[in-house]
């Protein structure tokens, strides 16, 4: 199976970079992960028989490269012992419009790793739940559960961010009034 390398890179490097950024939380490492993924494709991509699996192959490879280079040893996940509510907080899409892409990513970076990874895959490049299950090698039910909980955490963080923005705007307006 032959896939043009340059076309492949142009099609996927941005999405892979964003995924790498969400994992590594810095641009330099995200670039390294993306480059390494395509380097591995250059070496091994010809072994992939089913061209429809290219996207899954690339995201899986990047994720495994990230895991292999991760220095921080996570012994036990940090979780609240209390039950998380099953209902998502209601959110106004206009709140999200007021944020920059950087602010959304910063909120994502605060979501627990275990929920953030499937959530980013859901938002970046429209990966389906089955793609995400294959990339992360977890059951489909676990994907859905982690997306649900990731959304809860993200919405709470974004609500906090937009509340801060609103407060800053009010403070600025008061200062301008006084002056």
């Amino acid at each position: 199976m032959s896939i043009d390398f340059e076309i492949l890179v142009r099609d996927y490097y941005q999405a892979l970079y964003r995924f790498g950024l969400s994992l590594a939380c810095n641009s330099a490492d995200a670039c390294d992960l993306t480059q390494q993924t395509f380097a591995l494709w250059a070496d091994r991509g010809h072994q992939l028989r089913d061209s429809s699996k290219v996207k899954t192959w690339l995201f899986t490879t990047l994720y495994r490269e990230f895991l292999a280079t991760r220095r921080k040893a996570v012994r036990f996940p940090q979780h609240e012992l209390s039950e998380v509510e099953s209902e998502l907080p209601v959110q106004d899409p206009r709140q999200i419009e007021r944020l920059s892409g950087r602010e959304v990513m910063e909120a994502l970076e605060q979501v627990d790793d275990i929920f953030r990874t499937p959530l980013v895959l859901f938002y970046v490049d429209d990966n389906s739940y089955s793609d995400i299950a294959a990339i992360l090698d977890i059951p489909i039910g676990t994907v859905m559960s982690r997306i649900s909980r990731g959304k809860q955490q993200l919405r709470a963080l974004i609500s906090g961010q937009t509340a801060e923005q609103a407060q800053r705007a009010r403070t600025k307006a008061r200062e301008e009034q006084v002056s």
Partner: protein
Amino acid sequence: MNSKQARFILQSYRPNGGDARDPVFREALEQAGLDPELRGWLEAETRIDSALGAKLTELSAPPSLLDNILAARQAHQSRPFWLRSRPWFAIAAVALAMAGLITYLLTSARPAFTAFVPAAIAHVSGPMEMGFSTRDPTSLNQWISTHGLPAAIPIPAELGKKIGSGVMCSQFQWKGEDIALICFMLEGGRHAHFFVLDASAVDTASLPMGRAYAQQGEWATVSWVEGGHAFVLAAAGDQQTVEALL
């Protein structure tokens, strides 16, 4: 399916409509058709997910990244053919075959990992002497590090949440190998048993890639190999029971 269940499933429904024909979502979408509140929620959820996805696409890779990837490929291509990786595959394949033969000769003397699972179930089905108990992750870490185990054991996330309910630890021997056992308290007085053993001490060739599920009477188990260790998680119930602990 009720609306709460539908809502859980639809949280994974892609906003671009790519899942419209997926049978996994069919029943949930039908429920949304019947329940105006659920339908309204789905419309709002789709708008929010679209907005968030769009915001993330504002983040672009540095302009040099594309050029660097293509340049690296160009440099790789311009190397003499005997230095490119592909001709080395044949050499690597031979080396791999040799390693496989040596591994087979070595592992044929090691007990099969598949024989461990029934032994593990038998161990926890009878009376056990658990030498250590705690509800504190730090204390559990100390026990782990003082019993010849690596500092970072990948305890599954959902199982890790149960530490605060209490864990009991012990070590036992199986075919001359030390096995660490961490028992987690679950709701209703049930337990989940997490076994850790050195992967090099057993023949793991029969394990498929990823996780292997099995049913041993009333016990459901999931096994996997990671970072030089082999793990078995066992709990009374079925595959869903152990999946929920991962």
